[in-house]
């Protein structure tokens, strides 16, 4: 490929260049297949070693509405969402004017020739791209034209920021699963666009890409839902019962794709799993609970509205003590809210789901690696404590590609928890009681149906029951049972993932956050440090909290709880666990459907600190 400038040209230009540290936004209409182009760009950058993050801002719609895809390059590895972009690719007439208006001096705009810029901004460079003409020579069927046309901006970007075309080809063929004809066609368009720019535009773009080493090495690029699905595969999931809902559908669909690959019975080559699309979320979680009760590993994945529908069943699993795993890929609520916008608004709902006095174990993965880890760990916790376990991810972590440390093989063997086999239950005979707290951890021993013993059978119910699971309305029996369940809940505190604490030199201010906020918080801490403000950081990875969290809060003059919802739900839950030192907690939260930005967090925290 002759199209790459020579190294000498590079060095010549370097002085005024911005290397691997800028953002570009592609504005298109959805349903035009631009996702392929965007992913090709992202993967190419990843593969040449540039730390990148892609955030897809898409509508709750199938075709024709505005979509923005922002790719942030950060040689320093800051991969949180960032406001503004140095480079704008305008492919959508509908939003062109607005999009262009947001460009700041020094910005570069590439636009489809069919769109005429509403206003030309001082200090902004504009490059027209005759997409239609560029595609024409390849005479593609009408249906594919828009799709292929999107490759044009890949070529333009390659020309703008020095993307090696051979790397693009690699990504492309990976994306198109090696379909040679398609690859050649698309690459042809990319190349045509590249050459068109080379010939017709003056290259004055300071934003450049340079292959780099370091950050990406040993790391993977994957979205949280896929990682979670693989976690389930290695967690021994037997039943995935789900109901489609954005942004959780891709988790279940990834499982449907991965399980046949990795989980066929080595002896019979038949499935050791079932994936069932239920009629609704109530049935979905009900099936998972039924499977858990019968000794298999059942899970479901949903989002806000599904969580609401699952309340009654989750309350049953809580009180009848049945293991189940529930993934909530949070989207913006209340109600239907914004199905394609991210949020952390279900924390309180999940923690206390169900009428009556209930509290559940909730896990908060903060990266694809943790999605994988919690994907199998959740089953261990669910079976050990015989409880429903929630894993709260969100649209940002679940549906966007993140650079992550690779998946780690589970350190612990699969442990099915306290299940008695026929020999064991025969040995105990009438001694055995389903809800007896033999070990003092509040967790009783259970049997599963099909256990060949006349002692194994017992009756499960969501109504009041005694240690032998017989129906009881006796007040003492009821209180004793609740007390045991509370014991169990407390026992789980030290069995769930511990918080990640970074408190190098004991700062006065402690930051507390969870889940997908991690990169933004870390970046914010660096920025604060530059402003001379040291902060410690604790990332909560599970509820209920344990001593580590309490100590951290006690050790800091101010603890600032950072979350992506309207009510400061995590802050509320911590407040309740704390008692006195609560007054040291200050809530900082917002809720606008977008991942938090480091700039926003920086200004909030700086504001509080300067009080």
């Amino acid at each position, binding site marked *: 490929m002759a199209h790459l400038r020579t190294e000498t040209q590079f060095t010549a230009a370097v002085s005024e260049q911005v290397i691997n540290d800028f953002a570009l936004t592609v504005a298109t209409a959805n349903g035009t297949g631009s996702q392929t182009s965007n992913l090709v760009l992202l993967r190419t950058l*990843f593969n040449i070693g540039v730390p990148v993050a892609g955030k897809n801002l898409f509508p709750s719609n199938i075709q024709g509405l505005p979509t923005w895809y922002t790719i942030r390059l950060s040689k320093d590895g800051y991969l949180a969402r960032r406001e503004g972009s140095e480079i704008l690719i305008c492919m959508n007439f509908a939003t062109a004017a607005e999009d262009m208006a947001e460009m700041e001096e020094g910005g570069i705009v590439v636009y489809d020739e069919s769109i005429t810029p509403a206003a030309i901004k001082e200090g902004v460079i504009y490059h027209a791209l005759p997409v239609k003409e560029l595609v024409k020579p390849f005479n593609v069927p009408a249906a594919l034209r828009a799709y292929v046309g999107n490759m044009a901006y890949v070529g333009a970007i390659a020309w703008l920021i020095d993307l090696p075309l051979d790397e693009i080809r690699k990504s492309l063929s990976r994306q198109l699963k090696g379909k040679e004809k398609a690859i050649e066609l698309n690459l042809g368009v990319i190349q045509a666009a590249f050459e068109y720019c080379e010939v017709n535009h003056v290259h004055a773009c300071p934003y450049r890409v340079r292959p780099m080493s370091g950050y*990406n*090495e*040993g*790391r*993977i690029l994957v979205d949280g839902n896929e990682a979670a699905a693989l976690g389930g*595969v*290695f*967690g*021994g999931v*037997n*039943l995935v*019962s789900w109901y489609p809902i954005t942004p959780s559908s891709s988790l279940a669909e990834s499982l449907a794709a991965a399980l046949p690959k*990795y*989980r066929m*019975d*080595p*002896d*019979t080559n*038949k*499935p*050791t*799993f*079932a994936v*069932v699309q*239920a*009629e*609704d979320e*109530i*049935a*979905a*979680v*009900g*099936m*998972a609970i*039924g*499977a*858990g009760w*019968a*000794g*298999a*590993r*059942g899970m479901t994945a949903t989002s806000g509205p599904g969580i609401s529908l699952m309340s*009654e069943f989750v309350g*049953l699993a809580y009180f009848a003590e049945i293991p189940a795993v529930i993934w909530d890929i949070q989207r913006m609520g209340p109600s239907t809210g914004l199905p394609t916008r991210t949020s952390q608004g279900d924390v309180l709902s999940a923690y206390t789901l169900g009428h009556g006095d209930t509290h559940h174990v909730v896990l908060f993965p903060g990266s694809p690696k943790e999605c994988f880890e919690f994907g*199998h760990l959740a089953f261990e916790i669910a079976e050990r404590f015989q409880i429903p376990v929630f894993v709260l991810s969100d649209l940002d972590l679940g549906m966007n590609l993140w650079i992550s440390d*690779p*998946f780690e093989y589970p350190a612990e063997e*699969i442990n099915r928890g306290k299940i008695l086999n026929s020999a064991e239950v025969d040995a105990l005979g009438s001694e055995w009681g389903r809800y007896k707290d033999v070990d003092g951890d509040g967790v009783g021993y259970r049997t599963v*149906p*099909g256990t*060949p013993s*006349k002692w*194994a*059978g*017992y*009756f499960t119910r*969501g109504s009041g029951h005694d240690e032998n699971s*017989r*129906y009881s309305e006796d007040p003492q029996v009821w209180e004793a049972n609740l007390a045991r369940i509370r014991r169990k809940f407390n026992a789980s505190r030290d069995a769930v993932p511990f918080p990640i604490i970074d408190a190098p030199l004991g700062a006065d201010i402690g930051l507390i956050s969870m889940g997908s906020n991690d990169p933004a918080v870390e970046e914010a801490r660096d920025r604060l440090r530059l402003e001379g403000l040291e902060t410690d950081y604790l990332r909560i990875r599970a509820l209920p909290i344990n001593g580590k969290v309490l100590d951290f809060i006690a050790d800091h003059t101010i603890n600032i709880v950072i979350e992506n919802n309207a009510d400061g739900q995590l802050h509320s839950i911590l407040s309740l666990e704390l008692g006195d030192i609560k007054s040291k907690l200050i809530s900082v939260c917002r809720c606008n459907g977008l991942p938090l930005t480091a700039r926003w967090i920086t200004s909030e925290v700086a504001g509080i600190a300067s009080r």
Partner: protein
Amino acid sequence: MAVSRPAADKTGRRGKGTVLNPLGLPKTDYRGRPSTLCKGCGHDSVSQRIINVTWEQGLAQHNVVKMSGIGCSSKTPAYFLQGSHGFNGLHGRMPALSTGVVIANRDLEVIGISGDGDTASIGIGQFKHAVRRNIPMTYIVENNGVYGLTKGQFSATADTDQVLKYQGINKLPPLDICVEALAANATFVARSFAGDPKQLEGLLGAAFRHRGISVIDIVSPCVTFNNDAWSTKSYAWGRENEVIINSIDFVPEHEEIEVSDYDDEIEVQMHDGSWIILKKVGTEHDPTSRKAATILLEDANSSGKFVTGLIYIDEEKENLIELLDLTEEPLAQLPAYKLRPSSEVLEEINKAYMFGS
């Protein structure tokens, strides 16, 4: 006919006069805890039928699970098969739980007990979808036209213009469990009457052997809230008006059956190799014809006839477990190495996503 003998004969009498079943167990072993239902409640007689048939067929209790929703009817699993696991779930949600159970362990014989409120009111959605998935289970609706446990409100199967003491008149048309099952492509549809032990036991025997979901709509009178003679859900009315379309004899797998074709009989071979022999009574009805079943029900309902017997059966359709093609070993019993791929596999996966890949 040679093959048809009263089930009791199949059980041997060994000393001390206690009759034992094929597993050598006395019937008392198949009992449950004492019933807390009202004396005379139809549901108790259904429980007794289940005890008789499971005992006679020599079902191993540890391989049976008793699933139910909420209601007086749904309480009954506590009153039979003390040796089996039971799950008194949520109101109207027994089907979802049962689906999870059979997927977890395909070897289990699932007996689901529900009520008309539990199935036709709050539960109609899960019922339809369980039927549609052909879950291998016996789905029994103890149909009394009222909500017993909440003290006598109308259920969705109450007749139009029916009167209840505290509720007044029901103006709405009833949902018919059998029609609903058939509409959702059921593979075994039967209607019976708690006041007709013999027929019900025959149907249960066949249901337990059916390949997919066996729906049995049993008129089971609520003596406390809906047993006035004019109510179609009362004992009196049932006895008066029952129109038996066929009665079932059951021939276990191992026994020889001399295939005869008396035209008052139909033999159907069950998926497990055993046979059921349907003695047609009164009306000419071919239970292997969907259309015949549809018309039978339409006519019965438009003329207010209470037809009982096996209305429709299809042994050909695969059940959910077969559709899922699950491995023979129950998923709940798989060893750890079948639940977690090796670390090499994970390496491969990581590679695929890895920088430089």
